C-alpha cells in the first residue's frame, strides 16, 4: 500500500546497529516495521522507544529478563496493547498509535488489517474450548476471510498435518496435552496465512517434556522460511533457529545481531550479565 513511500531499508535502524551488513542470504524485503514505540502503563514507561525491523523469512528472537518489556512489545505489534506513541507497519499496512481515539471505527479497522497479517501465539494457547481442533482452525478463515468451508477445511488439514496433529483434528482442546494445544494453535494461526507469526513465550506454560515438540515445529517453520518474532527464554532454541537475537532491557533494545554474536560474544555488559544466569545455572 504505502510501500513506495517508505524510506529505503538501508536507512533503517537495523543498519545503524551494524546488523544489516550481515543479513543472512535467505531474508527478503522488510515486512514488519516498529517505529519509535513507547508504552506507558499509568506513569510507568514499559517501552522506551523501540525501533525494530523484520524482513521476510527472518526469525527474530527477543530475549531479556521478565519485566524488560519484550511481551509488551510483541503485544504492541498487533495492537493487543495500544502503544502510547509510535507506529507499526506490517506488509504495507501502517497504523500510528492513537490511544485517545483507540475505539474509533476507522482506527479499529486498520488494527484489524494489521492483525490479519500477524498471527499470534500465546503462552496459554487460548484455543477455543467449545470447538474441535479442526473447527478452531477453520473458524477465522470462514468467519473473517469468507473462505468456503471445503477450502478452509482442506487448508486446516494441511496445517494440522504440518504440526503433526492431523489425527487429532476431531478432538476438543480439553483432550489434548499442552504441547498438542500449542501446536493446534500454531496451525490455527497459519490457516490465516499471515505475513508474520508472533510467539509470546509459547513454551512457558508447558511441562518440560512437552516443550521439545513445540520448539521442533517452530524450528521447522523458521527453517522453512516463515517470518517470525519470538519472545522466548529458550536460549538453545534461539541459537538453533534464530536469524537474529534481540536483547531487551528496561524497555529498550540493548543490542541485536546473529545468535552466535549475541549469545557467545555480547558487546554489552547487561547482555553478558543476563546470559550468565542461563549459561552457568
Amino acid at each position, binding site marked *: 500500500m504505502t510501500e513506495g513511500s517508505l524510506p529505503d531499508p538501508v536507512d533503517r535502524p537495523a543498519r545503524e546497529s551494524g546488523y544489516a551488513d550481515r543479513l543472512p542470504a535467505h531474508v527478503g524485503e522488510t515486512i514488519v516495521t516498529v517505529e519509535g514505540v513507547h508504552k506507558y502503563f499509568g506513569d510507568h514507561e514499559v517501552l522506551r522507544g523501540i525501533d525494530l525491523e523484520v524482513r521476510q523469512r527472518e526469525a527474530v528472537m527477543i530475549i531479556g529478563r521478565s519485566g524488560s518489556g519484550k511481551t509488551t512489545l510483541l503485544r504492541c505489534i*498487533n495492537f493487543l496493547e495500544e502503544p502510547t506513541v509510535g507506529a507499526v507497519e506490517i506488509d504495507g499496512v501502517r497504523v500510528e498509535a492513537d490511544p485517545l481515539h483507540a475505539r474509533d471505527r476507522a482506527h479499529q479497522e486498520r488494527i484489524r488489517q494489521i492483525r490479519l497479517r500477524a498471527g499470534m501465539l*500465546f503462552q*496459554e494457547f*487460548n484455543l*477455543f474450548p467449545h470447538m474441535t481442533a479442526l473447527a478452531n482452525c477453520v473458524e*477465522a478463515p470462514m*468467519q*473473517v476471510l469468507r473462505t468456503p468451508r471445503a477450502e478452509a477445511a482442506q487448508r486446516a488439514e494441511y496445517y494440522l498435518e504440518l504440526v503433526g496433529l492431523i489425527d487429532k483434528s476431531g478432538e*476438543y482442546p480439553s483432550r489434548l496435552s499442552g504441547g498438542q494445544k500449542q501446536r493446534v494453535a500454531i496451525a490455527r494461526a497459519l490457516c490465516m496465512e499471515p505475513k508474520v507469526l508472533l510467539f509470546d513465550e509459547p513454551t512457558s506454560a508447558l511441562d518440560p517434556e512437552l516443550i521439545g515438540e513445540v520448539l521442533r515445529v517452530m524450528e521447522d517453520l523458521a527453517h522453512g522460511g516463515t517470518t517470525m518474532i519470538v519472545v522466548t527464554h529458550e536460549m538453545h532454541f534461539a541459537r538453533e533457529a534464530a536469524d537474529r537475537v534481540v536483547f531487551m532491557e528496561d524497555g529498550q533494545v540493548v543490542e541485536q545481531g546473529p545468535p552466535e554474536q549475541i549469545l557467545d560474544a555480547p558487546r554489552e555488559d547487561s547482555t553478558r550479565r543476563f546470559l550468565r544466569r542461563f549459561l552457568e545455572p
Partner: protein
Amino acid sequence: MVAIGDTQPDQVVLDIERAQAGHRRRARLVFVGVWVAILAAIVAAFASTGNTDVEWIAEWAPFILGGTGITVLVCVLSIVLAVFLAIFGALGRVSTNPVAFAVSSFYVSLVRGTPLLVQIYIIYFALPTISPVLILDAIPAGILALGFNYGAYLTEIFRAGIQAVPRGQLEAARALGMPERKVFRRIILPQAIRVVTPAIGNEFIVMIKDSALVSIIGVQELLWRAETSGRPALNILEAFFIAAIVYWVLTIIFSFFQGRLENRMARGDR
C-alpha cells in the same frame, strides 16, 4: 497385639470399604424413613379431622392436575423470553457504549426494584388503559411479565458468565482479525452460555413457583384451577394441597434434571 504388618493390606481396605458402604446405606434408610414418617403424620392428621372429602378429590383432582401443562408451558416460554432478554441485557451491562449500558442498567434496576405481582398487574391491567393496542390475553400477558422479570435477574447471571470467559479467549479471537461482533457471537457467548446453563435451570425451578402469581389474571394454571374448584365447594384444604403437591413434584423432577445437567457441565469439554 497385632502389628500392622501381620494383616493383609487388601483385607484392611476391603473392611474399611464395607464399613463405609454400610454407613451410607444406613444414612439413606434413615433419610427415607424420616420423610415417610413426616408424610404419614400429615396424612394421619388430616384423616383424623374427618374433614377430608375423598369423593371431592376423586372428582376434581383431574381438573386441578390439568393445570400442570399450562404451568409448565408458561414457564418454558417465559424462560426462553428471559434468556433472550438477558443476552441483550448482559451485552449492555458489559458494553463500553454508555447508552447501551444505561438502558440495560435501567431495565435491571426497574425490574429488580418492583414486585413481580405489581409487574403482572401493570402489564395486564394498567397498560391497556393507555391504548387498546396493549390489550393482551392472560397467557401472553403472564408470559411477558414472567419473562420480563426473570430476564432482569438472568441479565446479571449472564453478565457474570461473560466475565467468567478468560480474557485470553477475547485476545485470541481479536488476534485472528475477528471483528468485535463476531468475537462476541462466536467465541464469548457460546462459552458464557455454558457457564450459566446450570443457573438458568435454577431460575427455571424458582419460576415454576412464581408462575402461581399469574393465576390472579386468570391464567388457568394449577393455582387458578385449585382456587376455582375448591373455593365454591369449600374444599379449600384439599384443593390447595393438591396444587402444593404438584408444584413440589414438579420442582423435584426438574431439580433431578438440573442436577444431571450440572454434573455434565462440571465434566464438560474444558
